[in-house]
Each structure stands twice: as structure tokens, then as C-alpha cells.
């Protein structure tokens, strides 16, 4: 019995780290730009397929492809910001959120179709030689791939934290999120900051995509599912809370994994229940300020 629970717990942490990484980018763009990009999961899907390409066509190890994917997805995000989201960012607060949701919704339709054209509708997974290998510890099997994924996630989130709190540009991003008008008055180019922030958000989604393709698999339709998970995590953590998103991701992963033992197929509904409870009783999230 102990082993079942411990193993489930470890699996939950592995999946939860992915949730966290997927959510961090979404949280960043929403916190800074007040734009909710529900096509976030689509960028994750694209990241996964890019890594799959690099792996099958060039034989590039997925962990080595991470920086390449981050760069590619950053550029893709910046382009999409300029193409569609820049004109959304000009609207007033509430219209901005609503229209960004609708535009993201449109991208939702577009991305899977393109992906199907490029990669077919088949399920794709990255399977380097070491995938599936694991080592035992305290009677639990820890697989190398998810463990490495967890480490990557922690490193990426720490790096993001460092960027936002220690670098000049990172501080200007935070300043813009707190008061964009004042940021302009300080000489910060808000439009450019938005573009870079959006690119960072999609780059983070891309990184998560690589890990998803490695630990699970990707299909052209996987985007929505990941957007939903990321949304639940963001609401759980409180919008804009970066560190909170990581821990909230872990919580969701563990709750789902443990829930599956008792509830079987119904356990996916757990996310919804948590989501609704949080909305009702703590809309600022678990880690947000009251």
C-alpha cells in the first residue's frame, strides 16, 4: 500500500512540474499584459513537435534542443504578438481581456490544422535511448526522464525569477505590469516590453512542450488540454504569481494522481471542482495577496 501511494505521489510530482511550467508562461503574459492567451497550449504543442522534428530528422537530443526551441518559440510568439495581439493590447481593460480570449480562441482553430498538415494527426513521442529507464529509491521507481524534466522546470523558473528581479529589463517588465502608464513616463517602451513578454510566455510554453513530448506524447489536438490545465493552475496560484504557479502545478499533479486511485475516470473532474471552489472562495488564488 505504501508503495502504491508513494509511487503515485512521485508520478504526481512529475506531471505537476509540467503543469507548473505550462502555467508559468500563461501567468506571466496575463500578469504583465492583462491578456489571457488561451492559445497558450497550442504553442506548447508546437514546441513539442519542433523537438520531435529535431530528434527524428537531426537526431538531436531533446535536452540539447531546449535552447533552440525556446528561441524558436520566442520568435514565433513575438511574430504572433505583432500580427494579432498588438491590436488587442490597445483596447481598454475589460474589452482587452475579452478580445484576447476570442482571438486566442481563433488561434485554437488554426494551430491544430497547421500541425495536422505538417506532422499528421498521429501521436508523436520523443524516445531517446534512456527513456523508460529508472532507478529505485525507498521502494519507489524514479524514472530519469521525468526527474530531468523536474530539474529543467526548477532551473527555468529560477532563471525567470532571476531575470525579473535582478536584471534591468526584467524590472522594467515588472514595472510595466504594475503601472504601464508610469512605465511609459519612465521611458520604457511598453509595446516592445509587451512583445518580449509575450515571446517569453510562448518560449516557456515551448519548453514545456518539449518535456511533454518526452514524458508523454503530443498530437495536434493536445493544445486545449494543456491550456485548461495551465488555466486551472493559474487560478489556483493567483494570476501573475510565478513561484505560486510552480507549486500550484505540483498540487494539481499530485491531487489528480492520488484522485485517480479512488475515482478512476472521474478524477479529471477534480481539476474542475478545485477550480470552481477557488473561484468561489478565494478568487485571488492560494498564493495571491488577499
Amino acid at each position: 500500500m505504501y508503495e502504491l501511494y508513494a509511487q503515485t505521489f512521485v508520478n504526481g510530482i512529475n506531471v505537476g512540474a509540467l503543469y507548473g511550467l505550462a502555467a508559468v508562461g500563461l501567468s506571466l503574459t496575463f500578469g504583465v499584459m492583462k491578456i489571457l492567451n488561451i492559445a497558450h497550449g497550442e504553442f506548447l504543442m508546437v514546441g513539442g513537435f519542433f523537438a520531435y522534428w529535431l530528434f527524428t530528422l537531426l537526431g538531436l537530443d531533446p535536452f540539447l534542443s531546449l535552447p533552440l526551441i525556446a528561441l524558436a518559440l520566442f520568435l514565433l510568439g513575438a511574430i504572433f504578438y505583432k500580427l494579432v495581439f498588438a491590436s488587442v493590447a490597445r483596447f481598454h481593460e475589460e474589452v482587452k481581456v475579452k478580445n484576447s480570449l476570442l482571438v486566442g480562441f481563433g488561434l485554437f482553430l488554426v494551430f491544430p490544422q497547421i500541425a495536422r498538415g505538417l506532422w499528421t494527426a498521429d501521436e508523436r513521442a520523443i524516445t531517446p535511448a534512456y527513456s523508460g529507464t529508472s532507478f529505485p529509491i525507498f521502494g519507489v521507481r524514479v524514472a530519469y526522464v521525468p526527474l530531468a524534466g523536474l530539474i529543467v522546470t526548477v532551473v527555468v523558473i529560477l532563471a525567470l525569477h532571476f531575470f525579473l528581479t535582478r536584471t534591468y529589463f526584467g524590472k522594467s517588465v515588472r514595472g510595466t505590469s504594475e503601472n504601464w502608464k508610469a512605465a511609459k513616463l519612465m521611458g520604457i517602451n511598453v509595446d516592445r516590453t509587451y512583445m518580449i513578454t509575450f515571446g517569453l510566455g510562448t518560449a516557456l510554453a515551448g519548453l514545456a512542450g518539449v518535456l511533454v513530448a518526452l514524458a508523454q506524447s503530443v498530437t495536434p489536438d493536445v493544445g486545449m488540454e494543456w491550456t485548461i490545465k495551465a488555466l486551472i493552475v493559474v487560478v489556483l496560484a493567483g494570476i501573475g504569481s510565478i513561484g505560486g504557479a510552480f507549486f500550484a502545478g505540483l498540487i494539481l499533479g499530485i491531487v489528480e494522481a492520488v484522485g485517480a486511485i479512488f475515482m478512476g475516470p472521474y478524477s479529471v473532474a477534480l481539476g474542475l471542482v478545485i477550480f470552481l471552489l477557488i473561484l468561489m472562495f478565494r478568487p485571488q488564488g492560494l498564493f495571491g495577496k488577499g
Partner: protein
Amino acid sequence: MIHWKKGALSAGIVLILVLIPLFVQRSDIITYLFLTLLYIILAQSWNILGGFTGQQNLGHAAFFGVGALTARYIWLHYGFPLPLAILGGGLATAAFALIIGFPAFRLRGVYFIIGTLVMAEILRMVFDNVFPRADVMPMKLLATYNLAPRYYVGLLFAVLSVVAVYWVNRSRIGLGMMSIREDEDAAEATGVNTLKYKLLAFAISTFMAGLAGGVFAYYTAATKVGDLFAPVWTFDAVIIVFVGGVGTIVGPIVGAVFFVLLKQLLSLYLPGGMHVLVFGVLFIVVVLYLPGGLIGLMAKLRKKPA
């Protein structure tokens, strides 16, 4: 006078639609017409909440699904008569919506949108897991399957949905809903109980979505239950409303006709499924640059004759 003309025109259109199956035997044409009618119901149902009340619901598929599942179940497996089954589907949907709506509407705007989106997707996953196999009509029904009665049921509910939206547009309740869309604070200050009317709009909207689900449940010979909750139902409804003209009576009708026609046309020239891509791009363009949709575009062109 204009009133009278519009009434006559509408009656004429309905009459033609009633007569069509008597003269047209091609089942593909009847199918397209049926689908157009189904989309009109679905789009109008979204329009009441999203277009008139300004509360965008990105989880509409969930309500279509609940209605379809309920109606199909009590019709096929519990032997309810068909009209009662479809009605029951609508009522079950509205009841479910009110349970969801209470927490969701306690918060403004964006949380409602996220909430509906998340809720629909999770329902899809749950039902996909719980009912993994396709639900097929019994042999007895399949043997006597006929398109015409499906078409008439679709026509009946499509007309009812347009009448409902027409009524909303000119009634006290409709004015209250539109005031919420325009400015919630001003609506409250003017005596509108915004929570009550949001819930009312939500109930009417989801009731109609449930009816649309019921009509589809009657139409489809076999379906996976998870597919009834597929996000595509939301997409189609939202695209039709926006492309046609959000918050208008005629917009969703024009949108539905345009949607079905263009979809057929595109499927002739493009590989399967690619029409979705076209619709996605079209939708984004409409949201960003043509907020009035086709109806708005026509009005603009009429004002500025070349």
C-alpha cells in the same frame, strides 16, 4: 408598414422551408438545410448570452452536450416520447447551467469566460472516459430512419429560437440584458438586478443550447458521447454569431447559411478539415477588424453607395 413587410417576408421564407422536402428529394440538400437550421438554433442560443447580454461563454459545447445526452438517453433508453425528451434535455441543461452560473457570475467578466471553457473541456474528458463507446440507435429505428421528420423538428426549433431572440430584442427583459452588456455599473444604477438578469439570460441561452443538442440527438444515427461535448460545437456557434453579426437577430441566420455553404465549398477544394483553418483566420479578422460581422458590413456598404 416596414413591420408588416418584414413579417410577410419571414412567413414566406418559413413557408418555402416547410414545402421544400415535398419537392426536393436529394438527401444531401436536405442534410445541408437541416445542418443550417441546427446551427441557427445553436448560434441564436449563444447569441442571447454572448451577443445580447455581453457574457461570452466559451464552453457552450457543454450545454449542447448535456442537452443531447439527456434527450438521447431518456428517449432511447427510457422510452420518453420525442418532444418530451427534447424538452427534458433543454430543462436539464438550464438546471445544470444555473448550478454553474451562481458561482461563475459572482465574479465579473473574464472569470466567467475561463470558467465555462474549463468546465466544458472537463465534462468532455469525463464523458469520454465514462462512455468510451459510440451510442448507436437501435436497429428498429435505423431501419425506418427518415430525414424529413428530423428536418421538420429542426425547422420548428429554429423558428422558435429566432422568435425567442426577436422577443428578447424588444422586450423589457431584453433591454435589461443589453444594459448589462453596455455598462454593468450604469445598469445597476438604473435599477437592473444584474445578477438576476445574467442568470436569466444564461438559463434561456443554455435551455436553447440543450434543445439544439436534443435535435442533434434525434438526428444522429451514432455518436461518441464525448463528441457531443467537443469544443467544435462552441467554435461553430461563436464563429457563426461573430461572422454574421453579434447581438443581432438576423446575423446568426446569415452566419449559419454562410458557414454551411462555405464549409461545403471549401471541402470541395481543400483537404479534409482545412476549412477549420479558414474559419479560424476569418474569425480573428472579424473580431479585430469587423466587429459588426456581415450584417454590419452590409449596413456600412448600404450607407455609402459607391
